C-alpha cells in the first residue's frame, strides 16, 4: 500500500490512472463502451465543458474563480437567437458577435475584480444571476430553433473516417495553446506565482491586475464559444441553455488536481478529469445506473478530489517522517 502511495508522484497521475481503469473496466464489463459511437457521444458531451475548463484552470490557478461561465453561455445563446430572429443569417457574423459578447461579459467580471478590487467569488455570483437574468429578459421562455439544419450537422460532423466530431480538434488545438501559455512561458509561471502569493508575483515583473483582467476576458470568450457550439448542436437557443454547467466545469478542474486556493495544478490533469467524468457518466448510464445515483457519484467524486490529495500528502509526510525516525544516525532535534 505504501509503495503504491509513493509511486503516485502527483494527483494528476491518480486521475489519469482512474481514467484508464474506467475505460478498461467499462470496455470489458459494459456492452457498448468499446464501440465508436460511445466515444462520439462522450466527445459531444465533453466539448463545452472542456472549452470552459481550459481558461477556468488558469483562473483558479491564480486563486480567482469565475462562477458566471454557464450564464455567459446562456446569454450568448439567447443573443444569437435574438439576432437570428432579427434577421442576422450569416453564421460567421453570429459567431463573431457571440465571441465579442462573451469577451465583453468577461471584461465586466474582470473590471469588477481588478478595477474595484472586489472578490471574484462574490462578483461572479452576482453576474451568474445577472447574465442568466438578461438571457431571460432577451428570450423569455421562447426557444429560437429555426436555424438551417446544416448548421447542426456541421457542428457535430465527424472527422472524416472516424466517429469523433471535428470540434475535438478545435478543443485539442486550444488546449495545446493554453497548455503552452501555462507551462512554458513566463506568463504561466506568473500565474502560479499569483496563486501562491500575489505580493510576490508583483516582484516577478508581471502585472497582476492586467493578467487577471485578461484571464476573465478569455474565460468569457471561451464560454461564448461553448455557447456557439451549444446553440448549433441542439439547434435551439433558450435562456436556460447550460444552466448549472459551471458546477460541472469547476468539478472537473478541481478533480483534475487544481487547488481551489490557487498556485497548484496542471492542464493535463484537468483534461483527464473532464474525460473521466464524461466517460464515467456515459458508461454508468449505459449500465442503467439511475440518474439519482449518478448525482451522488458526481458529488462524492468532487469531495474525493479535495480530500484525496490532502490524504496523499499527509500519508507521504508521515512516511517521510517515519523514514527519518528509522535512521538512527540522523540527528533528530526531538
Amino acid at each position, binding site marked *: 500500500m505504501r509503495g503504491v502511495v509513493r509511486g503516485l508522484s502527483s494527483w494528476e497521475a491518480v486521475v489519469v490512472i482512474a481514467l484508464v481503469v474506467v475505460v478498461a473496466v467499462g470496455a470489458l464489463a459494459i456492452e457498448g463502451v468499446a464501440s465508436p459511437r460511445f466515444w462520439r457521444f462522450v466527445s459531444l458531451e465533453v466539448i463545452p465543458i472542456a472549452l470552459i475548463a481550459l481558461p477556468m484552470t488558469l483562473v483558479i490557478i491564480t486563486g480567482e474563480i469565475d462562477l458566471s461561465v454557464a450564464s455567459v453561455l446562456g446569454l450568448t445563446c439567447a443573443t444569437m437567437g435574438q439576432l437570428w430572429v432579427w434577421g442576422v443569417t450569416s453564421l460567421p457574423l453570429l459567431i463573431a458577435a457571440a465571441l465579442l459578447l462573451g469577451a465583453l461579459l468577461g471584461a465586466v467580471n474582470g473590471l469588477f475584480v481588478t478595477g474595484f478590487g472586489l472578490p471574484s*467569488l462574490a462578483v461572479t455570483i452576482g453576474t451568474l444571476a*445577472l447574465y442568466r437574468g438578461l438571457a431571460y429578459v432577451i428570450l423569455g421562455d421562447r426557444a429560437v430553433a429555426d436555424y438551417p439544419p446544416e448548421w447542426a450537422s456541421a457542428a457535430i460532423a465527424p472527422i472524416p473516417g472516424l466517429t469523433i466530431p471535428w470540434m475535438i480538434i478545435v478543443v485539442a488545438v486550444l488546449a495545446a495553446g493554453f497548455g503552452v501559455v501555462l507551462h512554458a512561458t513566463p506568463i504561466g509561471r506568473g500565474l502560479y506565482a499569483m496563486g501562491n502569493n500575489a505580493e510576490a508575483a508583483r516582484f516577478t515583473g508581471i502585472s497582476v491586475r492586467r493578467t487577471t483582467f485578461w484571464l476573465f476576458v478569455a474565460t468569457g470568450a471561451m464560454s461564448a464559444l461553448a455557447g456557439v457550439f451549444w446553440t448549433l448542436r441542439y439547434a435551439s437557443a433558450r435562456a436556460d441553455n447550460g444552466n448549472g454547467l459551471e458546477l460541472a466545469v469547476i468539478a472537473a478542474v478541481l478533480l483534475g488536481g487544481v487547488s481551489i*486556493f490557487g498556485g497548484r495544478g496542471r492542464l493535463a490533469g484537468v483534461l483527464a478529469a473532464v474525460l473521466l467524468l464524461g466517460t464515467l457518466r456515459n458508461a454508468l448510464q449505459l449500465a442503467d445506473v439511475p440518474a439519482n445515483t449518478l448525482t451522488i457519484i458526481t458529488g462524492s467524486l468532487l*469531495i474525493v478530489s*479535495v*480530500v484525496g490529495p490532502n490524504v496523499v500528502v499527509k500519508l507521504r509526510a508521515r512516511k517521510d517522517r517515519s523514514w527519518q525516525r528509522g535512521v538512527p544516525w540522523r540527528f533528530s532535534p526531538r
Partner: protein
Amino acid sequence: MTTTLARSASRRLRQESSRLFVIRELGIVAALTLLVVVTTIVNPRFLTSQGIKDLLLGSTILAILAVGQTVVVITRNVDLSAGSVLGLSAFATGSLFVAAPGLPIPVAVVAGVLLGAACGAVNGGLIAAVQVPSLVVTLGTLYVFRGIDYTWASGRQINAADMPGAFLSMGNTTPVMTMFAIVVLVAAGYYLRAFRSGRELYAIGSHPDAARLAGIPVGRRVLAAFVVSGALAGLAGVLYAARFGTLDANAGTGLELNVVAAVVVGGVAIFGGSGSVYGAAIGALLLTTIGSALPALGVSPFWQRASVGALILAAIGLDRALAVRLARTLRSGR
C-alpha cells in the same frame, strides 16, 4: 491587523466600523422601504393585510437559511448544500407524517432540525478534520444530499392530504412562522455578539492562522458553525413542508444561490470576519420583496433574476466603498 493598533485606535475602529455598519444596514432598509413605497403607490393592493402576510411568510424560510449561512460565512467558509439539506429535511418531515399520522408537531420539528444538524456535521467534519475548502466540499454534498433525497423519494410526492391540518395551518399563519424567524434571528444575533465563542467566529474569519495562534479551537468552531447552518436548513425544511404542503425531491433546488445572495446583499463579507445576521435577514426580506413586487408592478418576471444579480454587484460595491472610507478615516485619524 487590529491587534497592532493602540487601544484608543482600536476603540475608534470599533466606533467607526459600527457607525458604517449602521449606515450599511440603513442602506438596505432604505432600498427595501423605497421598493415597498413605490410598489404600493403603483399597486395599492401590494400592502393589504394579505399582501403583508404573503411577504412575511415568503421571507421566513429564506431568512432562517440566511442566518445559518451568515454564521458559516463569518468564519470565511460557505455552505452551498443548504438548499439540498432543506429538500432532504422537508421530504423527511413529510415521510414522517405519512409513517406516523398522529405524530406531535414538535417531534417533527425536532426531527427535521436533527437531520439538518447531521448533514451539517458531515460538512463541518470533512472541512475541519481533513482541512479541505468548504466551497468544494459543500458543492459536493449539494449533489450528494440531493441525490439521497432523489433516491429516497424515487418519484413519490407527498401531498397536503398526507400531513396534519394543524401542521399545514402553522405554515400559513403569519405570527407562528414569523416567530420562528425572529427567535432564530435574535438568538443567533445575541450569540454572535455576546458570547466569547461567537466573537471567536469573527476572529477565525478575519485571520484563521492568527486565530489558531491565539489559541482558538478553529476546527471545533468551524464544525459547530456548519452544524448550526445545517440545523437551521433542517428547520427551514420543516417550515417549507408546512408552508407548501406538496413535497417532492426537488424542494429547495437552487435555493443556495438566493441564500448566498441574501447574505451578500445583507452586508456580510464573503471572505469572513464581518457582517451580522440582522443584515442577512433584511437581505432575505429584500430579495423576497423584489420577487413579489415585480409582478405587482407589472414588470415581466424575467427581470427578477437580473435585478438580483445587479443588486449583489451593487451591494459588494457599496461594501468596498465603505471599507475604503473606513480605512481612510482611520489613517487620517492616527
